């Protein structure tokens, strides 16, 4: 794998810690459906499998840069330093949540940690991120924006319109197309012409005369290196980059979609429930970014004790987040009118 010192040992451990924290958080979200039925409502999307991409990319930016993503958003906030308590409380609909329970899992936002939020409408966050980059350029600062979205989202008009303008105006934004091979329950080669032709999705960058690159999204250091280059390019005023990061999600697209009073839960991944491809699923499981990166850290001399300490701290932290969210009060209806108009 990658030679040290890039990233240095401390940075590598930071990356591992964030990856583990994300996984632990997501597992608790998922277990809530069985352990505290009814506590999570609507639709929840997990990022298990995406940790290397999320953390590798965020490791490449400065504290004053910005991040925007999709409804599948928990991981970014954790890596950016948001409070898992306030996140879990939002996911449980509690008054102590990031948005006091107005928003829920799909719409976490934390502007204090540079996470400006998400759209639940596929692709529609892409122009938002592009607009943040426009603001940076108008003001003449050297910040950059990371814009995360899915392979499916790349088939929405908003993607096309935004990338053309970003390239034309040389906006400081890095587009990270998370190709997890599925658009909800649809396989990417059933909905993407590049994929159907056996070409990478980063080919799309050609339509915008923009650099496009495809990387192994299960390797946080590959992600970090590639994103760092794109970020530096954007900071220098040379414009955007499209990075296709390929990885797999291990949970189903989201919990099942049914009206009350049917209890919600997560089914197995679509490879198993719909396509009967246990092989595909298992192969990707072998490439789970967390154990792989753990092994690599061992290889560069990080001790088992150190790793276990990170892991148990994360478990404790996330258990605490669940407790906090469970114990928090419900919001009062008076906030409903407070946030209609600014």
């Amino acid at each position: 794998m990658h030679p040290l010192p890039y990233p240095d040992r401390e940075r590598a451990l930071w990356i591992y810690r964030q990856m583990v924290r994300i996984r632990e958080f997501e597992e608790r979200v998922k277990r809530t459906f069985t352990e505290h039925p009814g506590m999570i409502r609507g639709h929840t999307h997990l990022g298990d499998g995406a940790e290397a991409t999320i953390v590798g990319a965020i490791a490449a930016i400065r504290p004053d840069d910005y991040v925007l993503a999709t409804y599948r958003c928990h991981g970014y906030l954790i890596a950016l330093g948001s409070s898992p308590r306030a996140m879990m409380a939002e996911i449980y609909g509690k008054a102590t949540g990031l948005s006091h329970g107005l928003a829920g899992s799909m719409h976490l936002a934390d502007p204090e940690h540079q996470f400006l939020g998400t759209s639940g409408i596929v692709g529609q966050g892409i122009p938002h991120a592009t607009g943040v980059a426009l603001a940076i350029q108008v003001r003449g600062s050297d910040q950059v924006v990371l814009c995360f979205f899915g392979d499916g989202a790349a088939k929405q008009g908003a993607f096309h319109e935004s990338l053309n303008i970003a390239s034309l105006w040389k906006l400081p934004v890095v587009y990270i197309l998370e190709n997890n091979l599925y658009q909800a329950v649809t396989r990417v080669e059933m909905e993407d012409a590049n994929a159907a032709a056996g070409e990478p999705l980063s080919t799309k960058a050609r339509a915008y005369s923009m650099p496009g690159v495809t990387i192994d999204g299960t390797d946080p250091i590959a992600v970090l290196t590639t994103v760092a280059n794109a970020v530096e390019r954007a900071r220098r005023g040379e414009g955007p980059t499209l990075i296709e990061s390929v990885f797999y999600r291990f949970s189903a697209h989201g919990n099942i979609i049914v009206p009350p009073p049917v209890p919600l839960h997560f089914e197995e991944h679509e490879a198993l429930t719909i396509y009967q491809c246990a092989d595909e699923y298992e192969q990707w499981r072998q490439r789970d970014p967390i154990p792989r990166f753990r092994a690599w850290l061992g290889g560069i001399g990080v001790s088992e004790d150190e790793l276990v300490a990170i892991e148990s701290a994360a478990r404790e932290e996330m258990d605490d987040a669940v407790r906090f969210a469970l114990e928090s009060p419900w919001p009062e209806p008076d906030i409903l009118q407070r946030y209609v108009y600014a």
Partner: protein
Amino acid sequence: MTREIPYIQAIMEAITEEMQRDPNVIFYGQEQAVSDEDPMVVAFGRKRVRPTPISETAEIGMAVGAAMVGLRPVVELLMTDFILVALDQVVNEAARVYFKTAGRVKVPIVLKAGYGFAAGWSVQHANCWYNLFMGVPGLKVVVPSTPADAKGLMKAAIRDDNPVVYLHNYMLTLVPGPVPDGDVEVPIGVADVKRSGRDVTVIATGWMVQRSLEAADLLAQEGIDVEVVDPRSLAPLDLDTLVASVEKTRRVVLVDQAPRHASASALIAAEIAERAFGALTTPPRLVTALDTSVPYSKPLEDAVIPSVERIVQAIREVVQA
């Protein structure tokens, strides 16, 4: 003969039966027909049933084009909220072709979309958007509230030569109800008296029909006799039936899952105020969602959507005024 089946099954039965009847009917949409075992794929093959990318503008626009040359596409759009990225295709393309071409080109398409998922789906996924569609000349808009209406209106929508926005309320998805056997169409543009009564007319659609009927049952115990009328189709609107009911009861309460100015009810109230003013003994009363977004948290969501209690209270006030 009738069978008890859930609302969603009634809808899918109608589509299936129409596809059997007419080879011009095709069906596509996101996350549809992905597996070879999908019953639609098995029955109709991969030409007529397809999964699509997340490309609503193309999905709806292609339906318009395919319809121009004689197909009758049914597009599964999942949530009505997702139509917003492609609204032009519905209201300024599909709805205008027949007029622009002075009748030489028709656009028989059905846009199937769920709405009003007040089950924690939160700000961007739980809205009621009928106001986007019901004021557009050339468009038909149906909002079935029972399995029988759901099936009969889907059949009518597929057979209609106009673009039809078929809005099914997500909260009703699994609610069962009697559905007549055989090929029974429910005509578009005909309201239905879901409960007849003397004292007050309640006009409601979708999920709110169910809540209004519950309210009527409660009020019956107080001796208040509520008539519940479901327009079933918002465009065209069967004003004759609505006005006749109001002229009989002389009072009207309009219950709507949308905020006031996004509600179908406000438009209907204006019509009734103009057409039945003389008959009314009290002002037409709107019971709508609060004028705010649909929040995630359960107690907040409950406060926003009209509850049976709020409906009961409003009816009581109107009757006692």
